[in-house]
């Protein structure tokens, strides 16, 4: 568990944040470019000295301005995977991987083989970094950081410099990391898909401040989250739901998921029964009915209570409680015609096809 509270003045930019990772395996620092994500990473790693504040990891103080504690980076045991990999160009891949391993001999948990195999880099050991692809470099950077036996692994947009294909290749690997190696991860990103796929906890940052922090579902379903996410190309308003694979309906090519509000039927999801997934439902794909409909093709009908009704840009956004939050977007006319009021019970209709491509497998529960 990492507790961070710090302030730093960096030129015109002021950083003033406080958050905890609780016991989450993966905490995402999420926000636009320039929100202060990389500065926070640098401060945790000891590469940037905050003006005030403290950074405490599992009871050990890494930085405390009041007590004049400021451990130098080599003594912090905080691993960093940088966006640009930063492999040492004059060393072989093997020497890169072993650079930290040789220096942190106490309580060593991993050997070269245990890291090289899962990362799929055993055939690269004698190569030089200049001859590697971007994806290969990142895998080696991850391995190098893990072999230095970190208490915590910081990943600063490790996928940002990769193309779509390499990203897709590396993402499942990243999702497995905390479980395979048991090292908690702080993951910096401005990509919503990555965050939904990888993170358990989410710290939402904007202009050097924490706007919200909590589980991914808690933070992602806040009304102001959509506003920030939208600027990064996501859908306008959406709901993030964590669910578990309940069963696969083979002939129908469908998967049944159980979540807080009951069962959802979605197009076939790769993954075993019991695996956790996270899905994203655009508010515009959720329809509302006053009575359970009959004679409709919609697969998912979920009873819900209206929590609040808000208006943005001529559209009405309805926050539902369906055993968990659920956003629906309808027209003003529809709201008036149905006479929707907070507290009413309605039925949320979600087309299963609308959820294609928005479901990410998150590994074994």
């Amino acid at each position, binding site marked *: 568990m990492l507790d961070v509270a710090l302030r730093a003045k960096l030129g015109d930019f002021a950083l003033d944040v406080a958050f905890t990772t609780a016991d989450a395996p993966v905490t995402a620092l999420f926000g636009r470019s320039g929100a202060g994500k990389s500065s926070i990473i640098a401060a945790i790693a000891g590469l940037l000295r905050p003006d005030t504040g403290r950074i405490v990891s599992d009871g050990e103080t890494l930085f405390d301005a009041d007590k004049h504690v400021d451990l130098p980076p*080599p003594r912090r045991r905080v691993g960093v995977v940088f966006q640009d990999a930063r492999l040492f160009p004059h060393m072989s891949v093997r020497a890169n991987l072993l650079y930290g391993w040789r220096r942190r001999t106490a309580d060593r948990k991993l050997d070269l083989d245990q890291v090289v195999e899962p990362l799929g880099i055993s055939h690269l050991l004698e190569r030089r970094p200049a001859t590697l692809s971007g994806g290969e470099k990142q895998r080696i950077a991850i391995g*190098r950081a893990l072999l230095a036996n970190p208490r915590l692994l910081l990943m600063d947009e490790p996928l940002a410099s990769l193309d779509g294909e390499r990203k897709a290749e590396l993402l499942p690997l990243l999702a497995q990391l905390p479980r395979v190696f048991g090292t908690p991860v702080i993951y910096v990103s401005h990509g919503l898909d990555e965050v939904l796929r990888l993170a358990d906890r989410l710290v939402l940052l904007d202009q050097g401040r924490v706007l919200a922090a909590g589980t991914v579902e808690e933070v992602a379903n806040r009304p102001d989250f959509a506003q920030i996410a939208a600027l990064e190309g996501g859908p306008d308003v959406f709901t993030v739901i964590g669910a578990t694979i309940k069963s696969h309906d083979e002939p129908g090519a469908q998967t049944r998921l159980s979540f807080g509000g009951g069962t959802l039927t979605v197009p076939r999801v790769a993954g075993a029964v019991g695996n956790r997934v996270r899905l994203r439902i655009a508010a515009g794909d959720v329809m509302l009915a006053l009575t359970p409909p009959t004679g409709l093709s919609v697969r998912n009908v979920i009873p819900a209570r209206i929590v609040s009704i808000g208006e943005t840009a001529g559209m009405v956004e309805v926050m539902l409680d369906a055993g968990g939050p659920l956003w629906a977007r309808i027209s003003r006319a529809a709201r008036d015609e149905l006479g929707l009021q907070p507290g009413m019970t309605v039925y949320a209709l979600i087309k299963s096809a609308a959820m294609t491509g928005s479901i990410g497998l998150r590994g074994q529960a």
Partner: protein
Amino acid sequence: MSGLLTPLEIEALRLSLLIAFWAVLGGLPAAIALAWLLARHRFPGRALLDGIVHLPLVLPPVVVGYGLLVVLGRRGLIGQWLHDALGITLAFTWEGAAIASAVMALPLMVRAIRLSIEAVDRGLEAAASTLGASRTSVFFTITLPLALPGVLIGVVLGFARSLGEFGATITFAGNIPGQTRTLANAIYAITQVPDSDAAAGRLCLISIVLSLAALLVSEVLARRLGQRLQGRTRA
């Protein structure tokens, strides 16, 4: 060799090489330390130190030689103590000539090494530190190896400067045959004698060949080193 060159020429060549070798070898650690300090640290008096290091580049060499006499001469500030306590005399010895050459070569070495240290990606140094490397360790495993081409250039420039050094050497170490009569000093001595154009010409030719050879060797080394550091050759 002995058929090609006269004993006097061989003696001057040997002294030139000896003095230049020790000047560079002795000056290199200081040059690297100064370059690192100037490239990677901010401290009070940094500009002053930078200025002092560069002084030999802009001062008349005679001034540097005279300064050395004042400090390290038999009656000098440190030289007297060296002589009385340790029995070491530097002025008018080949060791003194090496010191004079080292001082004259230092700014060139520091400049070349500093530039290449500044060109080393600080991100790599930061990455090494998060992997558990102390500052010293980062310097010796990341910064210095990556700055090696610059160090090599510094060595060659320093060596060439030492070979050509004349003013500071003759002032501080004199022009003593067998001690401090280097190629440059020998040329000067010979030109004082009438009708010695041929002998002076031969010495000049030796100087030219020597300097060219040094430059060629450094060129080849630098190219190989650059390739190795960039990892373009197979490991």
